[in-house]
């Protein structure tokens, strides 16, 4: 029983990095911009966050530094793809590779650093409950913030005026412009928000989740977050659930291995990606499904007045 509670706890923790990054990417994809640079932004944010934590000792300042680092990289990406209309996919890949090299370069001096003992968290009273206590209420606050973020984003996208505008920009930038909205600035804002959230995710990874800095330490989590937005058909709550599902599969396969169960770990590891392809096949089958699920201008450049 206790091990299942711990498995659930580890799943929530593993899903948090993916959820925050995935929700960030969802914001800019809802505005019609695909940013394949997630991995690079997370890496730069990871070193920025780690360095900040080393020098200031504050984890929250570290998350802030990660957010700023991610936002700055996303802003550079935004200027390129929104104003100069460079190809979003190529620019995103370049951003990712740049982030990989740049973070390694500035991080050289931090490889041997280590952070003070990581604090333990527990929600008072609830944390002492049997089963649900260790499963749900002994997590880092960021785990709960990810849930709050998903709920808030759902409200924002579907219940607020600003969210409606953001979606309009992603569906039909021409119409949004005709209505008088500054499409380019809205897209840039969305890209910067997405970068900032990817940054928080990167900093959480290097400061709390795997508290160390080594080159290339994000090891593909950024790419998984990108797959996640598609898997979730661009809905915030589905991104959250998908993140727990993806995180859960990883933890489950390790859990089974630790128990000595003879099950191919490689097979389980590839399941999330198979599921993503499955979702893509499903939603791409007819135009109504695509319209209902995918931002219509996703990945396409916008030429105002053109």
């Amino acid at each position, binding site marked *: 029983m206790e091990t299942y509670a711990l498995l659930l706890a580890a799943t929530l923790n593993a899903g948090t990095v993916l959820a925050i990054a995935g929700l960030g990417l969802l914001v800019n994809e809802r505005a019609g911009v695909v940013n394949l640079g997630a991995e690079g932004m997370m890496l730069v944010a990871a070193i920025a966050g780690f360095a900040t934590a080393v020098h200031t000792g504050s984890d929250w300042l570290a998350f802030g530094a990660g957010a700023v680092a991610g936002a700055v990289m996303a802003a550079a990406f935004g200027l390129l793809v929104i104003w100069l209309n460079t190809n979003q996919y190529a620019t995103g890949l370049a951003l990712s590779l740049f982030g990989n090299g740049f973070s*390694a370069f500035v991080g050289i001096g931090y490889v041997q650093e280590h952070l003070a003992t990581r604090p333990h968290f527990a929600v008072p009273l609830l944390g002492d409950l049997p089963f649900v206590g260790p499963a749900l209420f002994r997590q880092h606050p960021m785990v709960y913030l990810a849930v709050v973020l998903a709920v808030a984003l759902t409200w924002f996208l579907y219940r607020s005026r600003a969210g409606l505008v953001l979606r309009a920009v992603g569906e039909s930038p021409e119409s949004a412009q005709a209505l008088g909205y500054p499409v380019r600035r809205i897209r840039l804002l969305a890209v910067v928000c997405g970068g900032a959230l990817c940054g928080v995710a990167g900093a959480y990874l290097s400061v709390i989740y795997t508290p160390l800095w080594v080159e290339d330490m994000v090891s593909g989590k950024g790419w998984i977050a990108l797959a996640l937005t598609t898997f979730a058909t661009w809905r915030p709550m589905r991104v959250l659930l998908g993140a727990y599902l993806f995180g859960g599969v990883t933890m489950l396969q390790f859990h089974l291995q*630790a128990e*000595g169960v003879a099950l191919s770990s490689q097979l389980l590891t590839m399941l999330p990606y198979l599921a993503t392809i499955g979702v893509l096949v499903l939603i791409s089958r007819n135009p109504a499904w695509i319209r209902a699920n995918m931002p219509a201008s996703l990945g396409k450049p916008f030429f105002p007045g053109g």
Partner: protein
Amino acid sequence: MTTSTRRNVLRGTALGSIALAAALAGCSKKEEAAPAAPSTSAAAAPASAASGPLKVAFVYIGPVGDHGWSFAHDNGRKALEKELGAQVQTTAVEKVPESADAERVFRDLAAQGNTLIFGTSFGYMEPMVKAAADNKGVHFEHATGYKTADNLRTYDSRTYEGAYMAGVVAGGMTKSNVIGVVGSVPIPEVIRNIDSYTLGAQSVNPKVKVRVVWVNEWFNPPKETEGAQSLIDGGADVLLQNTDSSAVLQTAEKNGKYAFGWDSDMSAIGPKAHLASAAINWAPYYVKAAKEAIDGTWKTGKSWWGVKEGAIDLVSISDKVPADLKARVDQVKAGLKDGSFSIWKGPIKDNTGKEVLKDGQVADDAFLGGIKFFVAGVDAPVPGAK
């Protein structure tokens, strides 16, 4: 239809080449020359007809900053420079992928006049075989490989001896009698280390059980963390890893459990969790190889150095380890040094109950090189085994 397809193909190629260019640019290069030599030294390298220092090159799979495998090799390089001073001039190329690029790097280094080249990853085997065939005047040294040629030889460290000594400490320190290993890739070398760790633990604690999770990668800190967390959640209280980062040690530190450093001394990284480090010391081998290349006695062969030759050791044993356990480790170390003790001596059974070594039978290197089973006490199947 055709044009759009071709355009897509072209775009794909363009992206591919961007990625490739960036990857190549990522291979940083470092050159460190020893201080200028007084050219009176009569022991100029006969291998290269010209006088001057012996040019030695190292090719690493990871960043030197991995704090593990490549870091240990780079420490060996630095020790070589210190020991032989102006007689050698070393170059290191890091982050070289195990692909066709590797062959280009080896050919490049040979063309630049390096006459002793160390390739420090298993996957460099074919590239090195090819590069060696075309550069007869250059001595190639391949770590962990098994193919040799007239100018290509192999060397390795008996890391399992370090794993055994770590096992002795783990067996004595565990309270739950469950210890864990985060494995990288299920190849004989890693399986042998897990087995030796188990044998070491059982030598002081017959009740101990070993659990294993595989990351299926050499270097993936988040996955290593997740694997370590699963082992801890499952009740393991002392962890070892056969992966290249310090993430497992960090995870143990965070959870108030114990762990070891692997490949390099990691005592600074998790001060509370760290029990000891199974550290490889490549320096003695690198110095020997360079000396042989300088005085022309370099011959092909296979070297597998262990505690005896100073190539592996359990270092920085924590004060938390009681004195009697430390004494036990010293006893093992002394036995391995003078040859009076063998780790792989029968009776040893695998974890399906089959006897693999008869009573009193000592495993030879061929047996050790092909270990594909877990010994009794490992609570896991070998991946892919029937």
